[in-house]
């Protein structure tokens, strides 16, 4: 799996681009001011060493020179003040443009932060039953504004996908909103940006921007319940899932597992990673994760599982069918 770049210097949408432009403007202006001040300082030092050590009373030009110096300093202070006012103006203008979502009907997505994973829901206002639940992977159509409503189930988290958007906190018992738009297709990495406990560093997510038709296809496939396993090994795996401790925390729609404490696993096999972007989603990683998650992500809420090899293989076969 190629890890996508997570960088604010490589914007994939208008919001990140506006933030980057502001950053470049501030940086370049500051560099120019720094260079000018340094040159002026060096010039003054050089002149001072070429002048007589002390002035005598016969130096009639000194008051005029003093007045000239005061004028220079006053001009520099005025320029600095104007520059700072310009900074405020540009900063506020950029913030205003970020605060107002762009035109057009936005795609609504709900995100709930958990220790240490992201719950993602695509509500359907026309038919509430059509809600799509997934985790740690947000699919969005290219070119359409996405409006995200966020909250947290435990502590404060922060939603940060630097290629598309600035940071926004997820606060327990309170709703916050943000929006972004991806203008080019690609996979963008995001990360929790507010320290939230042991595994804060392993709380990543991916935003997958794809062409609108491909996105609609994805959404349609996610709406369907889990496929009923056909081969006997996967059927045994389903029994392992439902009769063991998996079903105490995870939901798979279309089965009797309906707990929402851990990530929804209805379409687990369609996701790129497991454990909130910690490992690529393949059978060997999944096996290690199920047997002993604490060695991969110490402190994670998922307990280790005591499964015999046969049951584990069956469970893996079943999880692989959850496309």
């Amino acid at each position, binding site marked *: 799996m190629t890890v996508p770049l997570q960088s604010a210097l490589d914007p994939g949408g208008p919001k990140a681009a506006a933030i980057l432009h502001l950053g470049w403007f501030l940086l370049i202006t500051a560099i120019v001011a720094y260079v000018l001040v340094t040159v002026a300082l060096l010039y003054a030092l050089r002149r001072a060493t070429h002048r007589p050590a002390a002035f005598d009373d016969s130096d009639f030009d000194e008051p005029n020179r003093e007045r000239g110096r005061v004028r220079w300093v006053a001009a520099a202070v005025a320029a600095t003040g104007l520059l700072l006012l310009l900074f405020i103006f540009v900063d506020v203008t950029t913030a205003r443009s970020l605060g107002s979502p762009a035109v057009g009907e936005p795609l609504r997505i709900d995100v709930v932060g958990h220790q240490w994973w992201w719950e993602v829901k695509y509500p359907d206002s026309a038919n509430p039953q059509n809600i799509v639940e997934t985790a740690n992977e947000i699919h969005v159509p290219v070119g359409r504004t996405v409006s995200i409503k966020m909250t947290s189930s435990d502590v404060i988290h922060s939603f940060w996908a630097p290629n598309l958007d600035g940071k926004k906190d997820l606060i327990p*018992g309170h709703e916050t909103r943000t929006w972004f738009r991806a203008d080019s297709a690609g996979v963008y990495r995001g990360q929790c940006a507010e320290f939230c406990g042991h595994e804060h560093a392993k709380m990543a997510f991916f935003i997958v921007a794809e062409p609108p038709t491909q996105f609609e296809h994805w959404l349609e496939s996610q709406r369907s319940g889990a496929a009923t396993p056909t081969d006997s090994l996967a059927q045994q795996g389903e029994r392992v899932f439902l*009769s063991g*401790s998996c079903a*105490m925390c995870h939901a798979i729609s279309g089965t009797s597992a309906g707990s929402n*404490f851990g990530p929804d696993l209805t379409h687990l096999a369609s996701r790129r990673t497991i454990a909130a972007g910690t490992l690529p989603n393949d059978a060997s990683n999944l096996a290690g994760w199920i047997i002993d998650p604490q*060695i991969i992500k*110490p402190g994670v809420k998922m*307990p*280790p599982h*005591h499964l015999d090899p046969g049951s584990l293989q069956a469970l893996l076969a079943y999880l692989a069918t959850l496309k």
Partner: protein
Amino acid sequence: MKTSAFARIGQAGIASLLVLTAFAGCKREQRRFRETAPSGIPVDAVVMSPLQPGPSVIDVRISNPYDDNAYAVSEGKQLFDQMNCSGCHSHGGGGIGPPLTDDEWIYGSEPQNIFATIVEGRPNGMPAFKGRIPPYQVWKLVAYVRALGGLQGKAIRTTRDDHMMYKESEQARDKGHPSPTFTPPASVKQ
């Protein structure tokens, strides 16, 4: 200037008291990420009846590994809601299931009795959670259930909730005095 013997003893006393407090604090807040090796988790730590075929096993009274651990009690409080204990016991107040905040313990108030109740279930409604909740989480639940009934030290019990509270916190409750009831055997296989 000569320091008096009393002053020196006093200083040594305060220093050792500080060290002891620090150690006590460590135990109270101790967090372990790897509870047991996955293959070493005893699935049947507690059995309902001491009768069994084959050679008899030695009975050992097991104690809760999370006694005196405030972190485990607060974890147990989260599990109490997440595993839907509140569905019947209603935050300890009782409803479909018996209340857990009073002094009446039908199947015993000792940690191993509560462990057996959760793992094996009890007649008339208490489901058996064997194989559904790993033993170390059951022990955390046991630690919290005992805190609910005022059977843990005040310093160990959980304090205020993050949301609006329906009654006083576990810490604010009086010490529990469990009434002597029938105590079923709690045995461990060694």
